[in-house]
């Protein structure tokens, strides 16, 4: 319908409209463009851009969040953050979390993606759904379930592991500072694994089938095909996957807050729970007074560290991909 109309009406359109009329039409387009764009820009400016600027302002005040900030303290908040050993420990925990979660997830996800990418494998999308489901379950709920499992049946797990001679004493999984972060890492790996699986599957599907056929004709074995076709062809997508995985792990909050709230004795405090406890009061071992200025300073320092880290990461990964890459690299 529409297409036939195009052909017929194009003839009339060929006559040049009068320029005043055209100008009016263009102005109308401008106007409506702004109207269509305005809601998005307002939300963006008010709730994304302004807060970044405003939180910088709070960092110069000692402020508990009630009324207007008035107690100007200069750079004191930054000084306090930099000298707070708990800030550095929580930064350390965040890095440890990322250092374990990202590589384990990526290796497992790539392995499973290679299995599921086989076109002759039936029910592949069913299996993908099974492994993806934790992604759509909320971290808070996962935290509750794991806490229930561990606090009620941690002993059964202990007995099982002792019978298998994997451990020689009972472990208080979430209460022992040595193990709590480990549990959070395991749950973290499980929770967001599906993202990496789907990303790798998408990446694998961009590799042309002909390449594999050519390799087969050349007599390449399975490992050689993986090493000389899959890996190089995945490099571009791989860079994006790594970056997304790292950014994701640095945002860790929900799981920690629900499972341990940063405890015991700050053993699992990550930067986001640390900031939350500063800003909204501690539910942790020590009851801290809300200190918005301090929390904003911590957020700001962490934000700058993260931006610096992402820039370095992007540069390093891109150059690695370029130097060694043979396939089409962005």
């Amino acid at each position, binding site marked *: 319908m529409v*297409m036939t*109309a*195009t052909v017929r*009406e194009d003839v*009339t359109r060929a006559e040049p409209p009068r320029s005043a009329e055209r100008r009016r039409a263009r102005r109308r387009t401008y106007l*409506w*463009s*702004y109207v*269509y*764009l305005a*809601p*998005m*820009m307002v*939300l*963006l400016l*008010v*709730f*994304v851009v*302004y*807060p970044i600027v*405003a*939180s910088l302002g709070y960092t110069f005040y000692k402020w508990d*969040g009630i009324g207007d900030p008035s107690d100007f303290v200069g750079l004191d908040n930054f000084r306090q953050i930099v000298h707070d050993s708990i800030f550095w420990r929580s930064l350390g925990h965040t890095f440890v979390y990322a250092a374990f979660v990202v590589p384990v997830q990526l290796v497992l996800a790539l392995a499973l993606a290679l*299995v599921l990418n086989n076109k002759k*494998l039936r029910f592949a999308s069913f*299996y*993908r759904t*099974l*492994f993806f*489901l*934790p992604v*759509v*379950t*909320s971290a*808070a*709920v996962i*935290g*509750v*379930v794991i*806490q229930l499992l561990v606090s*009620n049946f941690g002993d059964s797990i202990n007995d099982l592991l002792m019978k298998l001679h994997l451990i020689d004493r009972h472990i208080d999984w979430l209460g022992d500072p040595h193990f709590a972060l480990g549990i959070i890492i395991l749950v973290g790996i*499980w929770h967001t694994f599906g993202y990496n699986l*789907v*990303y790798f599957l*998408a990446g694998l599907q961009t590799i042309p089938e002909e390449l594999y056929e050519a390799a087969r004709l050349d007599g390449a074995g399975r490992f050689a095909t993986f090493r000389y076709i899959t890996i190089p062809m995945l490099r571009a*997508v791989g860079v994006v*996957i790594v970056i997304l995985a790292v*950014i994701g792990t640095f945002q860790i*909050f*929900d799981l920690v*807050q*629900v499972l341990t709230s940063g405890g015991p004795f700050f053993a699992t405090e990550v930067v986001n729970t640390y*900031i939350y406890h500063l*800003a*909204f009061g501690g539910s942790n071992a020590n009851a801290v007074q809300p200190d918005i200025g301090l929390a*904003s300073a911590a957020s*700001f320092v*962490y*934000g700058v560290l993260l931006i610096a880290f*992402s820039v370095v990461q992007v540069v390093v990964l891109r150059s690695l991909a370029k130097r060694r890459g043979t396939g089409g690299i962005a």
Partner: protein
Amino acid sequence: MTRRRMVTAMTHVALLVSGLAWLYPLFWALGSSLKSDDDFFTDGLNPMPSHFLWANYLNAWQEASFSRYFMNTILITLGTVVITLVVTSCAGYVLARTRFPGRGFCLGLVSATLFLPHGYTIIPVFDLMQRLHLLNSLWSVIIVQASGGVVFGTFLFMGYFMAVDRELEDAAQVDGANFHQTFARIMLPLSGPMLATVGLFTAITAWNSFFIPLVFTLGRPELRTLAIGMYAFIGENSTEWTLLCAGTVITLAPIILLFVLLQRFFVNGLAGAVKQ
């Protein structure tokens, strides 16, 4: 031939067993939600209930305020999805299809915020909501969550509309359709798959979100969402395990169902985001 069939069968067994084991915590919660307190302790890690007990669901729904949490979550999710879809489809459309002064600036701003780390600005947003007198309402959660997703949605819609054939739009305009008619009658109906993708993404994020509703309902228990309700419940009544498991199922079931029905759109959206 038979050897290959053996390998295939083994692969299926391995995938099925590991896939079901992968979901063990969810099965365990589902099973436990149907047990009596006694059975819960004697059964231990065995998820299978010996007989089915529905009372936990009734108690969670009626006495533990899960009906209220459920309604709050539904309202927040719906509100966030509707606002996000309206705002991002309009913005994506004009950024993709019209030229106007200031377009470059808007695009630059949108791209810049895509790379800024989010989630460290909750305090000024909280302060802002306080000043707008929106703090103690579901609107604060809806608006903050929607604004968190506008950049991503706008980019997806922009990419989608850019790929649409120009002729369709020209034809509509020649037929006398104005700006709105072109968008509403031609472009928007074409973007069905993208509406589904962005909508589902937003719905899952909004339903599961924890940090934003936690902060914005700190002083108002009656505004809690399911996730926050669960979290608060474990702190307040930490012994009603089976009821808590029923709460888990109430929280997870709707969103898992939605995902399973529409997962094609979700997975395609994710895949598109990495490949771009």
